[in-house]
Each structure stands twice: as C-alpha cells, then as structure tokens.
C-alpha cells in the first residue's frame, strides 16, 4: 500500500526535474545558441595567411611551442568593438600572446578599426576567404581560441570577451596550462 502511495509522488518528482531543467535555461549568461567546439584538445588546423598591411605572413608555425590566444575579428563586426577594451587590457597586462585573424575584411577598414579601438595583437593574419575560420569551426566573429604549447586547441569562446570571461575562464586556463 505504501508503495502505491509513493507512486502518487511521481508527478511531483517529474515536475521538479522539469523545473530544474528549465531553471538552467533561465540562468544568467546561458545562451543555447553557443555551441561547443568540435576541435577541443585536437591539433589546431594548419594555416598560412597573408600578413596584415604587407606584414610577414602568419602561420601556426609562428607560435609553435607557445601558449597563445587566437582571436577572429572583423572591422564590420559590432561585438568585436565591444570586446576590444578587454583584449587591450589583456595585451597591456602581457599575460598571454594575442594573435589576430582578420575575417573577411577590407585591409583599409581593418586598419581604421585598429586605429580607433587599439591593436592588441602581436601579429595579424588576413583570412580573406574565410577558409581558415571554417577550419577552426568559426561560425561568427568574434571567436577566441586558446592554443597550447603542443599546438592543440584547449578552449574556445564564442562572442565578445568580457572581464568576466577573462577572470573566470582565461586566467584559470592560463594558470592551468602554465603561462609564464
């Protein structure tokens, strides 16, 4: 008999399970459109891109053996403007080397963008066709990847970086991967 009584609690248990699931969806900062990267812990794709404004070409061999952040950006991308102070701050604190990949952009527009918002990058490659971005699994700018000393992708962030992302994700990651 008690067994049957307990059965009456089943709908309540079901409701609580659903409520917990929906609560997760309401959590601040949760965005169901953000996708996990398929390349986490896999080697970063090889690329060789034209250098920015006649600079030397950028390839992943340029940061072999280094822990770096690679940031895909574009002058036409509004969230890139929002994240530029965060990138500038990272560059100023010199906690990690930043490489930029200018995605489907006109060089003169990108130059104007960097003049206005600052240039946090050590080097910039120009991905005019967007093929390098596809190889990284980029589906919208800005996106930021952490590549470890062994050349593997360890972390990806979709959308603009914020102080909070730096504090709660990037700094712990750098610590874990042993940034100097």
């Amino acid at each position, binding site marked *: 008999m008690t067994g049957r009584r307990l059965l009456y609690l089943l709908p309540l248990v079901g409701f609580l399970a659903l409520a917990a699931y929906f609560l997760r969806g309401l959590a601040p900062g949760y965005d169901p459109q953000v996708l996990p990267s398929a390349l986490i812990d896999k080697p970063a794709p090889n690329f060789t891109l034209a250098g920015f404004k006649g600079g030397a070409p950028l390839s992943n061999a340029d940061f072999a053996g280094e822990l770096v952040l690679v940031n895909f950006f574009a002058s036409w991308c509004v969230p890139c403007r929002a994240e530029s102070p965060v990138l500038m701050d990272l560059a100023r604190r010199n906690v990690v080397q930043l490489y930029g990949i200018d995605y489907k952009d006109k060089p003169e527009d990108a130059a104007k963008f960097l003049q206005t918002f600052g240039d946090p990058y050590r080097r910039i490659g120009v991905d005019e066709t967007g093929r390098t971005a596809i190889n990284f*699994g980029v589906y919208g700018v800005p996106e930021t990847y952490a590549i470890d000393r062994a050349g593997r992708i360890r972390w990806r962030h979709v959308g603009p970086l914020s102080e909070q992302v730096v504090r709660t994700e990037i700094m712990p990651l750098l610590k874990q991967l042993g940034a100097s």
Partner: protein
Amino acid sequence: MIRALAAAAILVGLVHVAFAVEPSEMLSNPTLEARAEAIGRQLRCLVCQNESIEDSGADLAHDLRVLIRERLKAGDTDAQAVKYVVDRYGDFVLLKPPVEPATYVLWFSPFAILAIGAAGAWLYLRRRPVPPDEPLDLNQRRKLERLLLDDQ
C-alpha cells in the same frame, strides 16, 4: 490588409528560399550538383541554426555550399564531404543527429515515454475489470417496474 501582408510575407519567403543557392555557385555537372544539394540539405546553417545551408542566405552557408562543391569536384564521396564539415563544426551541424550514446535520450525517450504510458494504462485497466452484466432477478425486475410506473 492582413491577408495582403501575409501573402507578401510568403512571397518574400519564397523568393528568399529560391535565391539561397546562387546560380554562380552551381556546378555544371548536374549529377555532382544534385549530390551537393542533397548534402547541403542535411547540414545545418550554424548562423541561423534552424535552416539547412542549402536554404540559408547567410554568408557562412554560402561558403560551406561552395566548399562542399569543391570537395565533390576533388573526388570526395558524400560521406567524406559531410565528415569534412562535421570534423570542424561537430555533430550539431547535422540536421539529423547520429544515433550514438550522447543522443540516445533524444532518439529513444519518445519510445520510453510511450512504453511508460502503455504500462500505466495496462495496469489501470487490469486493476478495474468491468463487471459483467447479470440479468435482474424477479424481485429486482418488480422493483424496477414499480419505479418506472411511479415516475409516470
């Protein structure tokens, strides 16, 4: 007015769909083009997330359509071309997710819920057998007749 607006909206939608694949993207070889379109219909546009890359007007969808056509021209099989995209964007790019441990809940939970419901219904019906109709005995029939007469 509302009808006219709705018609206009549908028309705009049709034009949008019809123009998603641009003529300049199409391959001259109709067999290859048909294969490319079939593959494109299986792949999700990651920008809009509810359209296939074949239907989407997004820039990335265009790039992926061109990429698929390049892979096919280079001699890829359909499976190789799909894998090329999945390797970069993950299983989410497939509009029809593969059956694997991570997607068991997605694929099999409807059947599990159906089974739970069927089991519940079976238990419920088994516990309450319908009593068979017994003919009334003489006393009961008299009582019934009296009641019916009283009513009139």
